[in-house]
């Protein structure tokens, strides 16, 4: 018995060591650093208590990023989940060429982020970009999609949706294929329409998957940074600055590491609360076994 416990812990050790080294220790480090000033030249960091957090309250870019991030999350999460579900239902049906279709939907996920961002950058380019060509052909005026404050964030949202939906589709597809076909046959025998079957049987059975995807989508929305760096660098006028991008700027452009650590801690708290809330409140409602 005791021996078994020791073996168990030993087996967990490699994974636990890596987690502590690369995840837990940096978190503790960030919290620690957030109470210290940023070292400058020969001046070592000094303890300044909550000064960094007070600076945050006064930091307009921080608030702007927080709001942007909220809109970004609200814009990407529901649409990409709905799209993922629709695509999964479509490619799960028995029709010709569905393997091809599945691959097509999944492609955005396997492309490197930087490449994706560059492709979309070309779509949005003023004057000779694909979108511009389309709108001018239809008789609309020209518009600098990424360059204007009113549309830049929406443009970034569209890219994120395009990229995420295919990835989430895979999870839905796996879940759909684990539903035995006899359930739909039983429903059909009882006279249930496809819509009724979808609403009353399929969607509830997909709830655990939806929860999983939702948590992932929230995390992805909060840690989005690479598209922003490639496409807009947070501009114009911080219209597309998201939380992690702001952290990145403060930490690695302005080298204000103490303040960046404080921002990181806030980011972590936001994520932890979101994940915890989803698991605690939704978990009870979605599992059946």
């Amino acid at each position, binding site marked *: 018995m005791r021996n078994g416990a020791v073996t168990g812990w030993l087996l967990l050790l490699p994974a636990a060591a890596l987690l502590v080294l690369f995840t837990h220790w940096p978190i503790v480090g960030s919290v620690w650093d957030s109470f210290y000033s940023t070292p400058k030249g020969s001046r070592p960091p000094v303890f300044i208590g909550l000064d960094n957090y007070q600076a945050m309250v006064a930091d307009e870019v921080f608030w702007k990023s927080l709001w942007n991030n909220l809109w970004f999350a609200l814009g990407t999460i529901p649409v990409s989940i709905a799209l993922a579900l629709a695509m999964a239902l479509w490619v799960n049906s028995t029709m010709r060429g569905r393997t091809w279709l599945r691959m097509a939907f999944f492609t955005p996920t396997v492309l490197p982020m930087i490449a994706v961002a560059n492709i979309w950058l070309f779509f949005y380019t003023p004057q000779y970009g694909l979108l511009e060509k389309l709108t001018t052909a239809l008789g609309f005026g020209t518009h600098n999609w990424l360059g204007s404050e009113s549309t830049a964030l929406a443009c970034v949202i569209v890219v994120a949706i395009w990229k995420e939906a295919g990835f989430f589709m895979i999870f839905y597809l796996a879940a759909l294929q684990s539903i035995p076909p006899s359930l739909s046959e039983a429903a059909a025998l009882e006279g249930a329409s496809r819509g009724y079957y979808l609403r009353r049987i399929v969607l509830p059975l997909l709830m655990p998957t939806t929860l999983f995807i939702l948590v992932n989508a929230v995390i992805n929305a909060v840690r989005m940074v690479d598209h922003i760096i490639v496409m807009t660098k947070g501009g114009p006028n911080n219209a597309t600055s998201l939380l992690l991008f702001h952290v990145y700027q403060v930490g690695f452009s302005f080298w204000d590491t103490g303040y960046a650590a404080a921002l990181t801690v806030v980011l972590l708290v936001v994520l932890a609360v979101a994940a915890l809330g989803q698991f605690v409140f939704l978990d009870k409602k979605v599992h059946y*076994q």
Partner: protein
Amino acid sequence: MSSIHLESVAKLWGEARALDAISFDTEPGSFVVLLGPSGCGKSTTLRLIAGLDTPSSGRIRIGEKDVTNLPPAERGLSMVFQSYALFPHLSVAENIVFGLRVRKVSTAERERRLARVTDLLGLGHLLERRPSQLSGGQQQRVALGRALIAEQPICLMDEPLSNLDAQLRGDMRREIRALQQRLAITMVYVTHDQVEAMTMADRIILLREGRIEQVGTPDELYEKPRTTFTASFIGAPPMNLIPLEHAGDGWRFAGTDSRAPVNVTSADGLVLGVRPEDLVLDDRGPLAATVVSVEFHGADSLVAARVGEANLLIRVPRHAHFEAGARVRASWAAHHQHLFDARSGLRRDG
């Protein structure tokens, strides 16, 4: 009550013939068992009747109506799936009334029927549970409840008892049969277990490789198997089949000197069939055999023996004691003897 009629119904999967133009009719209110070895087309037949698959050719009628191209819901039948097909996220009660909700049956009516069905099946204390919290037998009863509450004139069942243990299987067999008779449902029941078929059926349809081998009452299939296949499928254990060979103007058991009490002329060989329970140990009997082993079952024993190249089983009351290698002789009543043509496997009378 509804009758079911199949007219030359065939089903092809690509090149493979799952069903080869089968035809049969069932009486309203009767219990029909589709019996046969694995892969013979039982499930296929059932799914065609239910409308879950469409036949490659042929017509299916229910009562007077041609239903060949009707969707499942419009055929007036319910079905119990082999895997039960219960909805895992719905409670027992919701599973049972699923179809009533779909058809927007009034709440009062729904409650009334639910109470009746749960009473009938003894599910009253389980209504709030999820399927995963039930035993196999309870799940099976929920599936049965979902089929019964629809009050359809026809019920189809695909090996509903195959996941249950022997004890429960016996109980459920009797329950299903009693329910079917009480509610006068036309039942089509698929199984590959001949005991189930014998105990429950009004009529058995024996399938073999997508064709009908024989249709009849359990008695007919047991007493007058039309082919060696039927003979070797019906009965537990099945009929002994011993090849005969010419010996002068008569017959002897192949590979032995014992003459067989058969006076039938045939250019081809013959096969003699006797059921293990119809054989009696008899020192002056015509059949000589060498004991291989004895299986004690309690009420009786099965003595396994060899006659020439053929295997023989003899059912003996109580516990029989024989050494392996012992010589025994057996006899049987003339009316328990079956003769088959060796080449075609068809029954020979006279």
